[in-house]
């Protein structure tokens, strides 16, 4: 089965239909909410209305996606679409990893969570040699030292750091 390249459109055929249908459905819902989510103020001209540009956006999304759907080479759901859909779901595992990382940093601290995250995800991806795990720990340490210690990006001190004794506590909150 030739499922790689469409005749009239670029890119693979698999997954195009579910994507277009899903995007059109979301766009249509957003377009239907236009009157509820924006206001029209009498006495102002069309281009100054708060509703004008959101309308351009949502109706453009609906119109162009509908035309895109109309021009798709295959308009029936097939097995490759289901396989592709499953692939989209699998990626949610890494979204979970990322959100867990975000959730844990303010609780446990940027340095310990980054070290644990880098090493655990490296392990999960199949690099289980001491060398790769060591590299992942070094990488985590370098990221924390560079961004929080050197570039002073705004990442708050963790709740756990409060338990540390005086000077060490300040150092950890400021630099790690």
């Amino acid at each position, binding site marked *: 089965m030739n499922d790689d390249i469409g005749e009239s459109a670029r890119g693979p055929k698999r997954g195009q239909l579910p994507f277009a249908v899903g995007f059109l459905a979301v766009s249509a819902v957003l377009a239907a909410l236009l009157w509820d989510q924006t206001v029209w103020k009498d006495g102002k001209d069309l281009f100054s209305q708060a509703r004008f540009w959101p309308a351009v956006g949502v109706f453009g999304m609906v119109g162009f996606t509908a035309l895109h759907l109309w021009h798709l080479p295959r308009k029936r759901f097939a097995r490759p679409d289901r396989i592709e859909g499953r692939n989209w779901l699998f990626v949610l595992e890494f979204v979970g990893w990322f959100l867990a990382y975000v959730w844990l940093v303010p609780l446990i601290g940027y340095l310990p969570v980054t070290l644990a995250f880098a090493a655990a995800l490296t392990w999960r991806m199949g690099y289980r040699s001491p060398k790769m795990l060591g590299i992942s720990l070094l990488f985590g340490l370098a990221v924390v030292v560079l961004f929080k210690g050197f570039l002073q990006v*705004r990442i708050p001190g963790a709740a756990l750091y409060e338990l540390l004794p005086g000077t060490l506590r300040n150092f950890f909150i400021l630099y790690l």
Partner: protein
Amino acid sequence: MELLTEFLAQVQASSGILMRWDVGLALLVGSVGGVLIGAIPGVGPAVAIAILLPATFSMDPIVGLTVLLGIYGSSMYGGSIPAILINTPGTAVNALTTYDGFPMTTRGEARRALSLAYSSSFFGGIFSVFCLILLAPVLAKIAPMFGSREIFLAALLGIILVVTAHRRQALIAAAMACLGIWLSTIGLHPATYSKRYTFDQAWLSSGVNLIVVVLGLFALSQAFILLMGDDEKIRLTKLKGSFFQGFRELLRHPRVAGVSASFGVVMGMIPGVGEFTAQFMSYTYAQKSSKRPEDFGHGSSEGLIAAETANNAVPGAAMIPLLALGIPGEALTAMMLSVFYVHNVTPGPQLFQNDMDFVVALYLALLILNVLVVAFLLVATNQLVKVVKIPNRFLGVAILTLSFVGVYSLRNSFSDCLLAAGFGVFGYILKRLDLPVVPIVLGMVLGNIMEVKLRSAMARVKTPLDFIDRPIAAILFALILLVLALHVRRVILDRKQRKARAWSTSHASTSFAANLSRRRSFLLTERGKRLRAKRSKFSRPSTDES
């Protein structure tokens, strides 16, 4: 002449800015970092710039922009290394380099190919900076002629060009640009103080942050792509000797290098066109004008020069619409625009009038950057090639770890991270389906510009024709009509070609069952029987019947 003298005085004034230690360090970090990022396939400058953006907010505008400009300008140098050595472009725009670079490696000329790529890139980069410097006084004179309606029309032209540049995907690109426009409207409307699409959620009142979207669409999605993919086995060619020979060889092809750099500058200035078109045009020109066109795609030095010169001439030129009009032409310059905004520096006509020192300092930084990058590559290539070996999925781990810094350091907000993760999944799906991502970012940036400028322009317009009664507005409007007309023409021609192709090919099914059925009907026809009888004369007669 007077303009030039004035400009040279500006250069002298601006050089003081570049003498600062922090600017020098930013140049060094940006150039070396950009080469490294470019050399790792699967990372690319968009990911790096997206991650580093929030870190640059605490820096001085010139320092922050120099780092990002360094990454933007030097990543393509680095991207040529894996393109030539392992047939995998380091950045997307190095794809054409693989055509002639890798065949040269396979015949044992890797060093020559790399050396040619460096020298061509250097020439392209320097050429575009000189064009920028020469154009600066002219731009300073023209830029004030751009009022609200001209900037609105230029932004509209930019968005149309970005959409139409996506051949055979213009409809979905337009839908994505509209998504960007819609995203830019979320939050409080500044003119009426009314909420738009906030769904009564406090965290949406201030709108959707461009950097959150950019980090999701570029960095997180790329991390997901790498984590979900497989590692590739890479065998590297050993490199020995110096890399200077390419500069001598480049001198033998001044025409190809000059024309390709010019294509790069012109295409870089036009929003939405960029490196791909510039490369394609210069490569086609080089092939058509070459004495040995058959060598192209099989290790032609002219092909390599054309591709590398054109793509490196673009970054310098892309700064022209960004600085002069405040209109980004592609995703990377759109990201840089947010750095300007964070520091309350508004690119556009006023910047040229009030802060020319800053503009000239940026130009000079670009110039020095190219020299630094080439010097670094000439010395460190042998060590640098090792970064190509970093496994893909480990890179995914690294990008995911770094993306956290980018998103979380903005406002320490969990909802920002959630939104970025959502855009990451959306970007992942778009990349899997080979659908355009860039129009979303440009839709967000240009949509915002269009909304503000149209509102202020319409205050002084009585009839629709008043909108285009100034010369620049009329030219821009004519250009919009021309681009749309050309696009419609191309769509009609494409459709005709597709129809002709469909008529010329057989409609017979290729499925196994259909093949069996056709075979059976053929065997049962009279002609089939006749043919079998004829063929049996050449084979030994069966002895079963006797």
